[in-house]
């Protein structure tokens, strides 16, 4: 098969085109919330929230409710619960996150293991199945991306101030706690909607890796989001082709690609700063 065919043949399949669009949208959404997650040092929360969605998904599946709704309720509840308990208990947030994350996931596994019949659908939420994405899922992803862009447009300067300096912003009267809760909700919703594409286990990488890579490269928050989105979309598209041609899991292919990009950029920045340091030393 020549290289052009390799690119074009999959596009003949509707499911592949849907998967491409879905992965690209997931890439953009995760890049936006991921930039806040990385700058606020909340990567662990992303992991917790994605696992916490699991019991909600299983329960929704059992009672025949919309699966995204079940996941969203569990994820948002856990995200806000982490914030509320941290503020009241005096314990560090990473301990609270560890407790709730494990507890919620165990609840999901317990209910999951009690289901006697075949539950292949639910396995997709653990590891992702972007090739099985429906038109309805695509619509939800599109609305999510537009919703995120709208929030950024309306609340950019407030989010920037409270993310950078919560103390200064709080003293100046900004509703820092409500902005924090809004971010937690956006993270939870993004994770739940992205779960079908990349799965619970890998969604945190989609959120953290492109944003962390972008922070190595640029010096402005807006540029960081744009570069993270570019990395997220490129990795999603290329990863999907790799997954198709090598017949490996799509979520894993995308995340491996993002990890590879991160390592390359990291090596590049380390070498660059060495060269600068050497030049600086030579001048002296």
């Amino acid at each position, binding site marked *: 098969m020549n290289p052009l065919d390799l690119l074009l043949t999959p596009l003949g399949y509707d499911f592949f085109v849907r998967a491409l669009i879905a992965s690209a949208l997931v890439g953009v959404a995760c890049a936006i919330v991921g930039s806040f997650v990385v*700058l606020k040092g909340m990567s662990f929360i992303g992991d917790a929230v994605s696992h916490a969605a699991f019991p909600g998904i299983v329960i929704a599946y059992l009672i025949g409710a919309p699966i995204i709704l079940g996941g969203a309720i569990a994820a948002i509840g856990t995200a806000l619960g982490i914030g509320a308990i941290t503020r009241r208990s*005096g314990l560090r947030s990473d301990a609270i996150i560890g407790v709730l994350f494990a507890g919620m996931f165990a609840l999901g596994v317990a209910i999951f293991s009690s289901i006697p019949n075949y539950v292949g659908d639910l396995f997709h939420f653990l590891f992702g199945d972007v090739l099985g994405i429906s038109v309805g899922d695509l619509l939800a992803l599109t609305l999510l991306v537009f919703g995120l862009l709208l929030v950024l447009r*309306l*609340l950019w*300067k*407030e989010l*920037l*101030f409270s993310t*950078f*300096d919560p*103390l*200064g*912003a*709080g*003293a*100046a*009267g*900004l509703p820092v706690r409500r902005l924090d809760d809004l971010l937690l909700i956006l993270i939870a919703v993004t994770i739940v909607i992205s779960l079908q594409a990349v799965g619970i286990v890998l969604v945190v990488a989609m959120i953290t890796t492109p944003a962390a890579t972008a*922070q190595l490269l*640029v*010096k*402005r*928050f807006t*540029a*960081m989001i744009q570069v993270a989105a570019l990395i997220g979309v490129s990795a999603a598209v290329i990863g999907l082709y790799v997954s198709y041609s090598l017949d490996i899991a799509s979520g894993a292919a995308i995340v491996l690609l993002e990890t590879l990009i991160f390592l390359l950029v990291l090596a590049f920045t380390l070498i660059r700063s060495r060269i600068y340091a050497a030049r600086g030393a030579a001048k002296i």
Partner: protein
Amino acid sequence: MSDHLNAIELVDVTAGYGDRAAISSVSLNLVPGSLTAIFGPNGGGKSTLLKCIAGLMQPWSGSVQVLGAAVGVNAKRVAYVPQAEQVDWSFPVSVGEVVMMGRTPALGPLGRPGAADHAAVADALARVDMADLARRQIGELSGGQRRRVFLARAIAADPEIYLLDEPVTGVDPTTQEKIMNILDAEAARGRTVVATTHDLACAAQRFHDVVALAGRVVAHGPAQLVLDQSVLEKTYGGHLVPLAGGGVVLLDDPHHSHGAHEGHE
């Protein structure tokens, strides 16, 4: 705002972290146009006191009034500058963007910065001698420049009250001089300035009033009137070593265990 009113009024305020009170029964009145240094040992409650005034900490008991109302009501007329260590300096934001944050609260959620806001940012940067660094990423700044950016952010907000946590700690003498000249000028035009400091010499020489704080208010008043050996001994306790010549030397390393006691979130 009439002049006889207190800008800041604390009555019997007790506050702390967990089950440890950092300040107990603190009562304090600060008038408009005052320039006050809060000094005392590590863990003496300097930052806690400032955070109670800024509305960042809820006192366990007692009341705090700012500009004649409960804390928070007049938040937009207050500028708070946190300790430099409390900010992530690798954050991807430029000097100009940080100073523009000072304008954010007054603009409101749907407001966009206009010509007046950009002019205020430029003026504030000029006052701290950093007009040419507006596009720099903050991580590329020196320690003194970082303090000046945050002071510029406060100036850009045009507040009636400045609350500064350690604004001159660890900066070079030139920068300290610059910062103090600006704070002095702001107080002279009726703004209320409150700063915590480890630097007793700076507190005594450059501020009009000092508050000696060791969990409670040991003394409050003009530096030359209240700063004597007995006040210093009560404030610093065993950290103060009398010298043979009649002077005292202070054993209070600002870097030692500082974060553990006062850098608390």
